[in-house]
């Protein structure tokens, strides 16, 4: 089977990352993937400004983006009605990939979480997963965002789960950090009744 290719040309990608150096690395990776329209912001105030003047196709946002934090921004984007960006894909980057953080990201309305440090393969797979696995949106009194009940059948392009991936059980707030495979499983844990 021929693996599908992801075409990022002319898509506007907003990278919200406080570190200019890391932002530059992510920008370089995206350029390598074929992206030609990347906007960088360092803080949530600038992020909000950009969203009001520019149409964005996907947001890649650090969980600790100052001063408000990436999850507050995610909730703001999802909860604000009459907002043209309300359903854009949001990929949260987290150095602190504890279960509680990942669950908070999922419940804020993020499409996916990627663990820092970020590798080109890790970033490509998550972007590709968002592109090729559109999820329905759910609108309730307490939540607006991608359906949290979904199942990862394997990443596109023939990439399946990694060998060491395992089912995640919900743990205490201060639990250990999760590997990327565990993060992906936690995002998919709802359907199997674990969360």
């Amino acid at each position, binding site marked *: 089977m021929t693996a599908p*290719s992801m075409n990022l*040309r002319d898509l506007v990608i907003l990278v919200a990352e406080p570190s200019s150096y890391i932002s530059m690395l992510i920008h370089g990776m995206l350029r390598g993937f*074929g992206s030609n329209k990347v906007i960088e912001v360092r803080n949530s105030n600038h992020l909000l400004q950009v969203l009001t003047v520019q149409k964005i196709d996907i947001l890649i946002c650090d969980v600790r983006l100052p001063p408000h934090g990436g999850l507050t921004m995610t909730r703001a984007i999802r909860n604000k009605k009459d907002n043209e960006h309300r359903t854009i894909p949001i990929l949260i980057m987290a150095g602190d990939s504890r279960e509680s953080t990942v669950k908070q990201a999922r419940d804020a309305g993020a499409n996916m979480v990627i663990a820092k440090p970020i590798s080109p393969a890790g970033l490509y797979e998550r972007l590709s997963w968002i592109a090729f696995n559109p999820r329905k949106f759910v609108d309730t009194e307490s939540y607006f965002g991608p359906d949290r009940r979904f199942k990862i059948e394997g990443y596109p392009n023939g990439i399946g789960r990694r060998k060491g991936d395992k089912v995640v059980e919900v743990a205490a707030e201060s639990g250990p950090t999760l590997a990327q495979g565990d993060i992906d499983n936690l995002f998919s844990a709802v359907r199997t009744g674990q969360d």
Partner: protein
Amino acid sequence: MTKAKTGQEARIFAVETRFQKLARRDGGVPRDKAIAQAHAEIEQVKPDFDQWFDIELRELAALVNNAQSGEGKPGWIETAGFRSRQLRDSAGTLGFELIEFIAGSLCEILESIEAGNECNMESILCHVDALILARQPYYRALQPEQVPELTKGLRRVVKHVTINPLGVEK
């Protein structure tokens, strides 16, 4: 429509974003080529890492030294945490595993202080010293398991100050 737990109607609807539409167009970069090109982009900026790392390390050391001498500005822990995280994450992406390990270890200590644990300056200073050591070309190329005395020592320090925050001898 599906009933939500609150008794309100839950609206479930399909969304196809512009990202999804356009990303699936023909003419994209095949996965392996895209990743290889991304690595090539990273390789291009790698030579600048030394210079950037030196500046960051100097700033971090200055923050810590000021705090030790009682001249630390309010919020210095938060700033040190930011600098440590970006050292960890950039070194991790660029493949400098020993720097990633030491900076990650320092992040754990700073996060525990932010969470309310006592600030143990010695534990922070020894991590800054370890980063200065790891900056040298010989050490930078090493993996954490190749310097077990250093890495085990740092793990012991982290365990000591995060599990036993008051420094009470066990």
